[in-house]
């Protein structure tokens, strides 16, 4: 089985997936630093880095621009932050065929109140950006940190959901001004539809249905050729240049989610190449399985010259051993059902939050193991 570092070396695009709170952003930055150290022109596309990491990467200023990181590496390192806010406004401004359509969408009551809840815009923007960076040919390695989602797969499925949202059958229903002949005919021909519509009008008010209909009319113009773009990005994601890296922490909840991800990757033909276990409590190197606790206490007490401190140190050690045993068992169980030939990196718990280049460098040896 290869190391994570070897997997990174063989691919031009590395996508870090995983559920929220497992250290995805930090891992993505460390992988990028590793790539730059290996002499490759590298960029990390990040979503919401911790303030100190953003500082370290020179990303205090928002905006979708690549910024050079002073990393003192053989290859260059750039970082780019995706602006989370107003991702839909950006999409609308970018793809509206005319100023009129743009203004009509931005002025729609439903759009204004609900665009914060539209799923998938951030994910879609990240994928568009990835595609652009890749097509530019300016980088040998592009590392992508995915937005925080409940499920690791949401990132991939979001663009398809956008396509579904504008599905032809759905749109055929809505893409007609509400009072047009289309609706009226539908109402007369199909009595079921008529009854549902009457109820809906009672429930939402006619003006709401008019606005919803108008919203779809405008949006459908925005997404001319949208499906083709989604397909193009999907191709890049499934190509041989792309490696998916699943980031997980050794907690039961996270690993259950990660297991689900692993089960899905094959059906979705996602090239899962490596798994990173983050913040793992390491078991001690002592050979015996059952430790003589009294001996450890005596040893500690003698070393620090205090029975009380020795007791505290030993108790702390035993607590960590207990936690470490749990981590090891959970990881072992997880690895049994992982796809074969997937690289594994284990990053220890360390003794601090890692957010700067010095911290990231502490991670590097563990990525190469």
């Amino acid at each position, binding site marked *: 089985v290869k190391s994570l570092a070897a997997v990174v070396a063989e691919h031009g695009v590395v996508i870090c997936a995983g559920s929220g709170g497992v250290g995805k952003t930090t891992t993505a930055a460390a992988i990028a630093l590793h790539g730059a150290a290996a002499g490759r022109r590298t960029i990390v596309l990040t979503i919401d880095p911790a303030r100190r990491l953003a500082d370290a990467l020179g990303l205090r200023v928002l905006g979708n621009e690549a910024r050079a990181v002073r990393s003192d590496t053989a290859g260059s390192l750039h970082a780019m932050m995706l602006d989370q806010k107003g991702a839909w406004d950006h999409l609308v401004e970018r793809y509206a065929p005319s100023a009129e359509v743009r203004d009509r969408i931005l002025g729609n009551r439903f759009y204004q109140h609900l665009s914060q809840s539209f799923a998938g815009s951030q994910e879609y923007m990240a994928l568009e950006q990835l595609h652009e960076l890749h097509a530019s040919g300016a980088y040998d390695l592009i590392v992508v940190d995915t937005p925080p989602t409940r499920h690791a797969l949401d990132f991939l499925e979001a663009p398809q959901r956008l396509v579904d949202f504008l599905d032809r059958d759905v749109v055929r229903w809505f893409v007609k001004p509400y009072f047009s002949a289309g609706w009226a005919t539908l109402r007369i021909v199909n009595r079921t539809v008529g009854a549902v519509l009457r109820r809906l009008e009672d429930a939402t008010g006619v003006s709401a249905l008019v606005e919803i209909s108008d919203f779809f009319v405008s949006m459908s113009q925005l997404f001319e050729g949208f499906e083709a773009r989604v397909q193009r990005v999907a191709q890049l994601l499934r190509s041989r240049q792309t490696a998916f890296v699943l980031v997980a922490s050794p907690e039961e909840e996270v690993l259950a989610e990660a297991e689900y991800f692993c089960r899905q990757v094959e059906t979705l033909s996602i090239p899962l190449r490596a798994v990173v276990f983050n913040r793992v409590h390491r078991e001690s190197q002592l050979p015996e399985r059952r430790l003589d606790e009294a001996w450890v206490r005596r*040893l500690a007490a003698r070393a620090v010259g205090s029975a009380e401190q020795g007791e505290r140190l030993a108790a702390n050690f035993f607590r960590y051993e207990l936690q470490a045993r749990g981590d090891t068992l959970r990881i072992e169980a997880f690895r049994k059902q992982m796809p074969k030939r997937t690289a594994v990196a284990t990053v220890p718990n360390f003794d601090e939050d890692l957010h700067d280049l010095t911290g990231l460098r502490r991670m590097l040896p563990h990525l190469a193991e």
Partner: protein
Amino acid sequence: MDLAHLFQRRLLVVAGKGGVGKTTVACALALEAARHGRRTLLCEVDGVARGAHLFQVPPLGIGEVAEVRPGVFLMAVEGKAALAEYLQLIIPVRRLLATVFKSRIYQHFVAAAPGLKELMTVGKIWYEAERLDDDTGQRRWDLVIMDAPATGHSLQYLRMPAAARDAFGTGLVQREAQRIVDLLTDPARTAVNLVTTAEEMPVNETVAMHRQLCDELGMPTGFLFINRMHRCDFADDDLARLGASAERHRDPRSRTALRELAARAREEAGWTRVNARYRARLARQVSMPIVELPHLFAEEFTAQEVRTLAVHIAAQAGGADQQEERA
């Protein structure tokens, strides 16, 4: 504020960043509420039934209710099922609805319509919080606890009723949305509790979430739970002595043991200091009463650990009477 007051509310939301232990805190709160004599419904949102696992009962189907401990009921809430239930209430024509539910248009629309699932989920929780029992006419639940999804997503849920009210200018949906907003913003009936760990990212999110709750959503807050606190500092001198002693030892086993003792002590001391720093920041920037929960070292997180957290919560937030009773 103490727990007795908190449990007088009808709805408690438990929110926080992914991976900080929201579900375990929500479960512990539910145990305490039941101990206060409140018949409590714990709602898991987004179809993830981790509570069932923690209480060691078989996974629940969507909408299914199980009494997992005396007085603690668990239910998984999911937007699509909640929408179907709601439509059955407002369109009581079974045959017609069956046709609608089966159609591909409906399936696609429900999957993709912005905010619909979130709105229906919160609507269902509101319904349970206000629901009267068919037989007795009494409230079905004394208290409903919503184990919310990760921060960004829980804001989407909590924001939806107001967004829907404003998007639909008139009609039934607007009126119902307004009733949900009324519940969510009423300090006598609702409190949002936040869960975090004392580390950079979760604290950033917590500070931002608190601000949005207060300024944008106008929602009343309850307790701030700082979870997984490391609280065992070791003097640098002692760490140095352990290291020096390790180098002096000839016996490789003793040498390894001393190095490991030092490494684990450094790990614990390091996190203790990180936690103390961010706890101080939380105290400065988030004006909510704090409950500190220790990091529980365990091979596996089980019902026993949930119980332990509940005891810690009672000890710190129980109010004077409770603390005496415990003592």
